[in-house]
């Protein structure tokens, strides 16, 4: 049986950055929980130690923690890296987080001349074959960790000619087969909808909200596509855009309240800026809580 008892508190969290350690530990703020990137707290030989682990232990005594993986390569063609899965289990066992999540993407390739970890969330086609593989990988993760995981919808820049499922349909099938939960990244929905010319509100309408354990909000950048039209880039380097706040409000109205995270990973701002983004989210969340 998968442990489904753990969950994030119904409030707003932020992606933890070490430069904010004392602001988070000492100040009054709207942040109720923290998300960390699993791979920043792993060692190659033996466990990770030093200041990063000491800070994480101190924070995990005071805040519920969401462990967010970026390196499992759930959508990879090859098998999951057993060493990496073991490191993840070690971290999860030590921190005992409120939630573990990963991405519908791949990032590692382990055969041929170009093998390695490519530090990006790379896209996969949605077919019967990739569905079976993703489900196998999630089964393996959940049985190794002994708990349910959340799977996050990606930010897409392109489409695959071979895809036979829509993304929401694919995610629904994964949930049904594996019993995993979902992490709904509202900024990713907005970015993908613009880039793939689909309707973001339709996507939210179709989403299986009963499976959603967490929402992500983050900032995006704007570039240009092949025809000079806007191509949005999921950069996590600025404030959440106004239309994404609208889409978030719509998602809450549709799905009810969900624990919500502000992601800000590049050009990380002063704490006050991040805390005010968290306060904006908390305000919207409170409106659906009453």
């Amino acid at each position, binding site marked *: 049986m998968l442990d489904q008892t753990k969950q994030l508190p119904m409030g707003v969290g932020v992606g933890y950055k070490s430069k904010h350690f004392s602001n988070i530990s000492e100040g009054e703020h709207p942040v109720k929980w923290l998300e960390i990137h699993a*791979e*920043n707290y*792993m*060692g*190659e*030989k*033996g*466990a*990770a*130690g*030093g*200041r*990063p*682990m*000491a800070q994480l232990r101190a924070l995990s005594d005071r805040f519920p923690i969401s462990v967010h993986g*970026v*390196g*499992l*390569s759930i959508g*990879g*063609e090859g098998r999951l*890296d057993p*060493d*990496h899965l073991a*490191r993840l289990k070690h971290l999860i066992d030590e921190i005992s987080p409120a939630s573990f999540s990963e991405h519908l993407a*791949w*990032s*590692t*390739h382990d*055969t*041929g*001349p*170009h*093998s*390695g*970890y*490519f*530090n*990006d969330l*790379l*896209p996969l*086609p949605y077919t019967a074959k990739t569905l079976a593989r993703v489900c196998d990988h999630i089964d393996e993760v959940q049985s190794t960790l002994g708990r349910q995981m959340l799977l996050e919808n990606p930010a897409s*820049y*392109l*489409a*695959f*000619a*071979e895809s036979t499922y829509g993304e929401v349909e694919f995610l629904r099938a994964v949930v049904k087969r594996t019993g995993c939960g979902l992490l709904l990244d509202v900024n990713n929905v907005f970015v993908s909808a613009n*880039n*793939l*010319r689909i309707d973001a509100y339709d996507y939210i309408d179709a989403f299986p909200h009963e499976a959603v354990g967490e929402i992500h909000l983050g900032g995006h950048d704007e*570039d*240009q*596509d*092949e*025809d000079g039209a806007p*191509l949005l*880039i999921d950069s996590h380097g600025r404030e959440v855009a106004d239309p994404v706040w609208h889409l978030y409000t719509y998602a809450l109205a549709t799905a009810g309240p969900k624990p919500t995270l502000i992601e800000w990973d590049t050009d990380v701002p002063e704490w006050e800026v991040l805390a005010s983004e968290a306060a904006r989210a908390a305000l919207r969340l409170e409106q659906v809580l009453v």
Partner: protein
Amino acid sequence: MRQQDFIQAALAPEAPVPTGLITPSGAPATRRFDVYRNNIIVGLKEAIAASYPAVKSLVGDAFFEAMTGDYVRAHPPKTPILPLYGADFAEFIDGFAPASRLPYLADVARLEYALRQSYHAEDTCPVPAAEFSDPLLFTRQVVLAPTLIWLASAYPVTKLRRFALDGDRPSGGAEDVLITRPGYDPIATAFPPGTIAVLDALRDGMALANAAELAPSDLDLSQFLGTLLKGGAIIDILEGDHDD
């Protein structure tokens, strides 16, 4: 599309977009594929820049950009643990012809990586310094902390690093360097060439008293031992005598 083809094209800036990757209107996704190309390379280069600030400062931004671009394409990370990416960057620099005018550059990279490794290394419990007042202990095998790292350089590598980061003029010659981590911040201490023979011997199981005999004549043994103890570098003393 095979993921092999995706990666191969992503790492080669001039390669055509793999077939089957399309825009909403069904055309080849050229600009869109470049987003992944760019994300992969920029992200990996940033990870290297974060680990090697002194190397970057010694060669300048433009040179560092070009050098790390070549490096990340040829040596992507072996694991997803990005804070430890770049273990073989020094070796790469050794073979990177445009950097051959800075023969010490690879050693500065070695030192920076060792500091990073020590920073992230597993926490252990050091043997309390008081226990070393018992002379018997010098006949025992010791276990060294994972935070303790050492290297030898033909250059004044700790001074070159400080020059790169703070502008102090480097001077002097070859150094053996000990990296220890008292608390959470690793420090690099320079010792006379030949010193690391003592550490190699300790690691291989020789007792302290015997290993100390391998020290170069100009090594201040009490300063050396003091650096080890203050740095929490000895984490266990094994039972029984060792006279090998």
